[in-house]
């Protein structure tokens, strides 16, 4: 393990002296792979040590949370929990000393996972309907939520990047406003009967619907979908497609093709219909 830490202290301390040779990375390296899986190795070793020592150490009458061994693991676990919560503070506190949030995240992930072993082995597998087991179950729940977090961190960024399509949040909001203005203008010649659903769609908060709708992608009371349904007649717009930020939004923003000429038809060649819906 000495080699694991040597690079951490030796090399980096040197850089302080020269100031000209900063620690630089030439390639992107994710938090899971950080320093060639340093924290995965440390945390794996820790788990192994606990499992082996648990088997070798004879605690009378049997392993449980109240034995000296159980207390040792319990203290270690409690300390770890406190340290794990410190990430929330650490990531918001910019200080000028040596630290890297990526290293912290990496350690947080792997040491957090090792808590499953530390916590469970601390119990001596004495689980039952009591407050101790409740605490253990809640801890496991938190760890599982962390696992979900890792999956999200690993898979969503690509989709985020693709969906964003080089637009910034401000530009997206601006695009929605522009569509609203265009729709408003385009609805001018319509009869009051036809105008009503358009106005209703315009009045709707583009981010309404609550968390259920956001997570499921279903908007049963979407006024825009209703307006499309009412006005399109023959053309049945499929709500799912209409809700996507597709390439169409950029097209509309740049107004480089027919999609822009809202007066003729509000249709985009790519997504089939108005893509202004969220």
């Amino acid at each position, binding site marked *: 393990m000495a080699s694991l830490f040597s690079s951490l202290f030796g090399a980096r301390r040197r850089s302080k002296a020269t100031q000209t040779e900063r620690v*630089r990375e030439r390639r992107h390296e994710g938090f899971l792979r950080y320093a060639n899986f340093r924290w995965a190795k440390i945390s794996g070793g820790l788990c192994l040590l606990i499992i082996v020592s648990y088997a070798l150490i004879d605690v009378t009458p049997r392993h449980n949370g109240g034995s000296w061994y159980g207390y040792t693991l319990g203290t270690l676990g409690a300390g770890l929990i406190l340290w794990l919560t410190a990430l929330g503070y650490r990531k918001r506190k*910019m200080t000028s000393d040596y630290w890297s*949030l990526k290293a*912290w995240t990496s350690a947080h992930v792997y040491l957090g996972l090792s808590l499953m072993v530390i916590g469970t082995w601390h119990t001596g597998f004495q689980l039952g309907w009591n407050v101790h087991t409740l605490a253990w179950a809640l801890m496991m729940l938190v760890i599982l939520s962390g696992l979900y977090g890792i999956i999200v961190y690993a898979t969503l960024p690509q989709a985020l990047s693709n969906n964003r399509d*080089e637009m910034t949040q401000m530009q997206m909001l601006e695009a929605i406003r522009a569509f609203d203005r265009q729709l408003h203008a385009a609805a001018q010649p319509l009869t009051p009967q036809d105008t009503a659903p358009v106005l209703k769609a315009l009045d709707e908060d583009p981010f309404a619907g609550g968390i259920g709708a956001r997570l499921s992608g279903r908007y049963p009371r979407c006024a825009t979908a209703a307006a499309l349904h009412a006005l399109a007649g023959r053309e049945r717009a499929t709500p799912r497609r209409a809700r996507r930020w597709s390439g169409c939004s950029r097209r509309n923003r740049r107004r480089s093709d027919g999609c822009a000429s809202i007066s003729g038809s509000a249709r985009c060649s790519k997504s089939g219909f108005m893509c202004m819906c969220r």
Partner: protein
Amino acid sequence: MTSKVEWKPLPTEAVKVAIIGSGPAGLSAASRAGQLGLSHVLLEKTDHLSDTIFKYQKGKRVLATPDRLDLRSDCRFAEGAREYILGNWDDDANTNKVYAVKQAEVTEVTGQKGAFEIKTSKGVVKAENIVLAIGTQGNPNRMRCPGNDLPHIIYTVDDPEDFKDKHITVVGSGDAGIENALGVAEEALENTVTILNRSKDFARAKAKNVSDMMEAGENGFMSIRTETQPKAVEPGWLTLETPTGEEKIQCDVIVARLGSVAPRGFVEAMGIEFTGPDREAFPKLSPTFESTVPGIFVIGALAGYPLIKHCMNQGYDVVEFINGNTGLTPADEKDLAAIFANLPQKISVSEWLEFFRQRVRIFSEVSPLQMREFMLDSKATHYRTGEIVFEKDEPGSSLFAIADGHAVVEIGGGATVKIEQGSIFGEVGLISGRKRGATIRAGEDSIFIEVSRTAALKLMAGVPGAKRVIERISLERQLLQIFRGGLTVEDLQPVVDQAQVERVSAGKVVLTEGEQGDDVYVIRSGSMVVEKDIGGKPIFLRYLPAGSFFGEMGVLSGQPRNATVKAAVGSELIKLTGESFRKMLAAKPKVREATEAAVAERAQMNSFIEARKANYSSAVDMYSDTASFIMKEGLGEATDALLIDENLCVGCDNCEKACADSHEGLSRLDREAGKTFAHLHVPTSCRHCEHPHCMADCPPNVIHRGPDGEVFMEPGCIGCGNCMRNCPYGVIRMEAAPPEKPSLIRWLLTGFGPGPGEPSPKWTKKKLGEEKPKKIAVKCDMCKGIADGPACVRACPTGAAIRVSPEEFLSIARLEEDAD
């Protein structure tokens, strides 16, 4: 505000000195004349003093830089609000008995020293001497329609936020007009903005400005009216002449941006010569500010001194000179004395200046006045034998001149080269902005003068002789460094004599694959990309930074060019003819060997990539496409750029927050903005260019390159915005630092106040109340002084953000890893 000055009628008798222009320089000169009891007249074209500062927005803070310079004037000047400074000057003009004449615009100057005739809009003035202190603002072109003298027509927009809920019409469709229109058309200001263009298209403006304007037009933020011009101005209304007839629109403010007449033509008409034809040239002046026309003196911004303090000191000095005070030492004498204080010999400042002028080749054509200016930005240091001046790979962009003794260059392998007295060194950093190429020591007890980059560039622009010497020496050195093997300056003579400097714009092809040719090129500034057509697709082979050479394969083999070379960014190349190059190689077999070895290495790499292409086509294509994307984004001139891997970026904006919190509360990067290719995102963030565009025109000279290669700003920014406009990547903001935020713990526990990162403008505004702090330029300093490196990278939780140079990022190792 109204002027408190006691204006006088035009003098009927000849005066000793006529001062044209009542800015800081002119007013200070007139005040000195008034104090000395010299017959004088101060001619001002408007009805108030100091028009440029008068036109600043209400309450704007005027800074008094440089701090180290003492003020020597009969007028007061210290940092303060515009009203305070103008009020002081009005009072000072009266107490100093200044004979000021308003609304006397000078149209023509005739005669010679002792008997000048100055034609003004009020009549003719006779004067023995003239002091020109007209600044560089020029006269804005006025609107020509009826009503063009109404007060709601303005010629500049200092702060768009001064306009809220107004009907604003911008006349003129150049960059200035479009930028003003975009500024006031900001949605939050709720202005109704119209921009008028006499013709159909916007040919005079930058493409970026035009597209921004078109977008704003489409989004309904402004109405763009082409082939339209103003016909009549009335308070509140404007009549337009449109292709379909006349139209009257509501209009509370007219911003007229119709260009201006630069003062140069007026100055040249008097017979005053300039140092050169460029826009940056200044009138040629003697140490007493006298121009090439005897009796006409030029001071202030027009003479090349844009800072108020300089101007005021010069006003004082020039009148003393005219009054016959030859013993006056300039106000900067004590600063110069401080610069020379550590030198072993104890002689006077003027003796030192003369000593340097006579001994150093690049100073030989410099006037004593310019010499003072350069020395103020320079350091004169005494080195003992063997003392290191700078080390190899140290960043630095200053130029050293050897005034006494000699320097020794370590060229590797224990070998050294001597640089004689009178010569220069360090010019590579000056020209390409790269790190030092070799370690330099003092060969004996020596005196070296270190000239800052800005001063050196000013020297090159102002003194053609100095420019020639620097360019010649730098070319010789560059060639010596590239082609080793016992080459001497004499061997290079024929090559250098035939060398030509070529400027190429970004994307221009220099060599085309398959063509015949034997010229060899050395990249002086900028960078190149080498591409080869493999399987019908141009494949990126190599990135060539400044200081490398190409085209040598053609000379050695006589074969057609085997790859295409084009400029990644605007670059300067030195073209050496194949014939002279071949002769040099023939004379020096060792150089030929070294060159052949370099060629072999490059050829090997080419064949490596070609072989990869056959086996791992997609990996090579990806590498090549990534390289082209990076070059297209202008990273060819970067030394250190922020690159985000969007496979890892979760969009938490912690980089921006960390940036703001590591500095004074303002973020220097915009993560979301910028282009993306294959999930590689180039955010809006400083790239620390090799040749920083921001450095080009900084009046107080506060932008420098630091020890880690970072381009940073030291305190002293005057908020002129030149750097922001010059940056092609839009990474410099003009912003005032927000007030102190409550502590992080308090925010975490209570949720009150802004959290980490830049506070919202709303919060800042509420906190500041009526106070309007001065906006200054804010740019990335690569977290200078923080040993662990840039905060944006350190604060990335997933490792998505890194800072790299293009050559590090596009190393061949990357391709190998991708392919494996």
